[in-house]
C-alpha cells in the first residue's frame, strides 16, 4: 500500500474535523499556560483550507496538497502556530516532491522534514515543552517502523502513538520556548497545546489509512 493524493486530502479534511471538535479543548490547554487561542487559531486555518480542497486539478499530487496547506496556514493562522505549522507543511511538501503516492520511506521523509522545519523556525529542542516534543518521538517511531519493514498504516499508527505519548510527557515540564516559558514553574502539570494539536494531526493521518478499505 502507498498513499496517494486522495489519502492526503482525506487526512487534511479529517484534521479539520478533529481540530474543529477540539477547538475548545485546545483553547483551554492554551488558556492555562498561554493565551487561550490555540484551538481558535488551528480551527481557523484548517477551515480556510477546506474550500480549496474542492475541485483540485487532476494533476494534483500529495506534495501540491501539502503546499496548499502550508500557504493557507501561513496566511490565515497567525500566532506562533501559523508560521510553525506552515513551515512544517512547506518542508514536508518539499520532501515528498512530485511523487504521485507515498510509501513508508516517503512518509518518514515527510514527518522528518516537517519536524526539521519547525526547529529551523522556532529553535526549540526536545524537552522545551513545545510541539517538538510530539514531533520528534513521532519521527523516531516512524523511522523505526520503516526500518522494521512496517507498512504505511502501521508506520502512521506508531507515529501517532508516539506523538500522543510525547504530548502527554510535556505535562511535568517547565517550558523554555513559547508563551508557557513566561510562567516558569507554574507551567508544570499542564500539557503543551501545540504538542496536543500535533498529536491530533498525526492521529488523523493514521485514522484515514485505517479507515480506507
Amino acid at each position: 500500500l502507498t498513499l496517494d493524493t486522495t489519502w492526503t486530502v482525506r487526512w487534511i479534511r479529517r484534521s479539520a474535523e478533529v481540530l474543529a471538535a477540539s477547538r475548545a479543548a485546545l483553547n483551554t490547554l492554551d488558556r492555562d499556560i498561554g493565551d487561550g487561542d490555540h484551538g481558535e487559531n488551528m480551527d481557523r486555518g484548517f477551515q480556510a483550507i477546506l474550500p480549496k480542497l474542492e475541485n483540485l486539478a487532476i494533476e494534483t499530487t500529495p506534495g501540491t496538497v501539502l503546499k496548499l496547506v502550508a500557504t493557507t496556514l501561513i496566511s490565515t493562522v497567525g500566532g506562533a502556530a501559523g508560521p510553525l505549522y506552515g513551515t512544517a507543511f512547506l518542508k514536508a511538501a518539499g520532501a515528498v516532491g512530485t511523487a504521485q503516492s507515498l510509501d513508508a520511506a516517503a512518509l518518514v521523509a515527510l514527518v522528518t522534514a516537517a519536524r526539521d522545519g519547525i526547529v529551523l523556525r522556532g529553535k526549540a529542542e526536545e524537552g522545551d515543552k513545545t510541539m517538538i516534543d510530539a514531533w520528534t518521538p513521532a519521527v523516531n517511531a516512524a523511522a523505526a517502523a520503516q526500518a522494521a519493514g512496517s507498512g504505511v498504516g502501521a508506520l502512521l499508527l506508531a507515529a501517532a502513538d508516539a506523538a500522543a505519548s510525547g504530548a502527554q510527557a510535556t505535562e511535568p515540564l517547565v517550558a523554555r520556548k513559547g508563551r508557557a516559558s513566561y510562567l516558569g514553574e507554574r507551567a508544570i502539570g499542564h500539557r503543551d497545546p501545540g504538542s496536543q494539536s500535533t498529536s491530533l494531526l498525526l492521529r488523523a493521518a493514521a485514522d484515514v489509512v485505517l479507515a480506507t478499505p
Partner: protein
Amino acid sequence: MKKLINDPKNVVNEAVAGFEVAHGDIVRVSHDPIFIVRSDAPIRGKVGLVSGGGSGHEPLHGGFVGYGMLDAAVPGAVFTSPTPDPILAATQAVDGGAGVLHIVKNYTGDVLNFETAADLASAEGIDVRAVIINDDVAVKDSLYTAGRRGVAGTVLVEKITGAAAERGDDLDAVVAVAEKVNSRVRTMGVALTPCVVPHAGEPSFVLADDEIEIGIGIHGEPGRERIKLEPADAIVDRLLAAILDDLPFVRGDNALLFVNGMGGTPQVELYIAFRRAAEVLEEKGIAVTRSLIGNYTTSLEMAGISISVLKLDEELMSLWDAPVQTAALRWGR
C-alpha cells in the same frame, strides 16, 4: 461574557471600520488584507515605521498611526499576531524608498510572522529591518528561552522612533534610536481582574476576590506570582523594585514614568499609582521629567496596571517632545 459586540468573529473588522470613520483625517484603512496606514503614506525619503500584533491592546497599535509616530499598524485577531500577508502589504504601502522598520513585540508568533513578511518584502527590493521589543522584567531573560515579552514600553519606542523618522533620520539611525529606547525601558505589570477574549467567552484566569496576579503580560496570560491584595503603594513598590533592579540608575538621572492602564482600571487608580511611583523615584534621586498616564497598552477589560520607566537623555527627551498627531497621542500640532 458581557460585551458590546455583534459577533466575536467581527470584533476586529468592525472596530477597524469604526476607527476609519472616526480618524479619516489621520489614517486610511485597507480592509483586505487588514491594516491601518497614515493618510499621507508613503512619504518619499522617510523611513517607514510598521508595527502590529494581536488586537485587544488598543490603542496599541492603530491609535499610534500618524504624523511623528507609526506609518502603519497591522492588527491580528484578538491576542493573535497577524499573518505575513497584511504585514507585507503594510510594508509596501509605507515604503517611501528609505527603507522600513518593523517594530515587533517579542512573542514567537509576532517575530515569526514579521520575519516571513520581511523576507517577502526584501525579495521585492524593500530594505526592511526589525527591532524586537522586550521590556517586560517579569520574565527572566535567557538565550535559551523565548526571552522577555514586549509590553507597554512599545508605546515609548514607537513615539520616540517615530519622531526620529519624522525628522529625517536614515534607516540605520532610526534602528539605532529604536534599539536605544528598547535598551533603556523596563516594564512590570499587575492584574486585579482577568480579561475575557471574545471568542473564548471565559476569563483567561480566575482570581479570588482578595488575590492579584503579579508580572502579567498583555494577553491575559497568568503572571509570575499570585499574591494577596495589598495597598496600592505596596503593589507599586513591588513593580518598581523589579524594574529598578534591572535598569541601572544613578542619582541625578532623568526618567520618563509611564503608568499604563490595562483597560478596566479607573483613572483615579492610575494617578494614585503614578503618585507613589514618582515618590519612590524621587527618593532615589531620579527625576521624573516626563510622564505618560492612561490606557495605552491594554488587555481588553482587564483591571490592573503596568509601570514603565525609561531612562532619558537629551536626545530622547527632545524626540519625546516632538510633535505627534495620532488618534491616541497628540501634541504639538
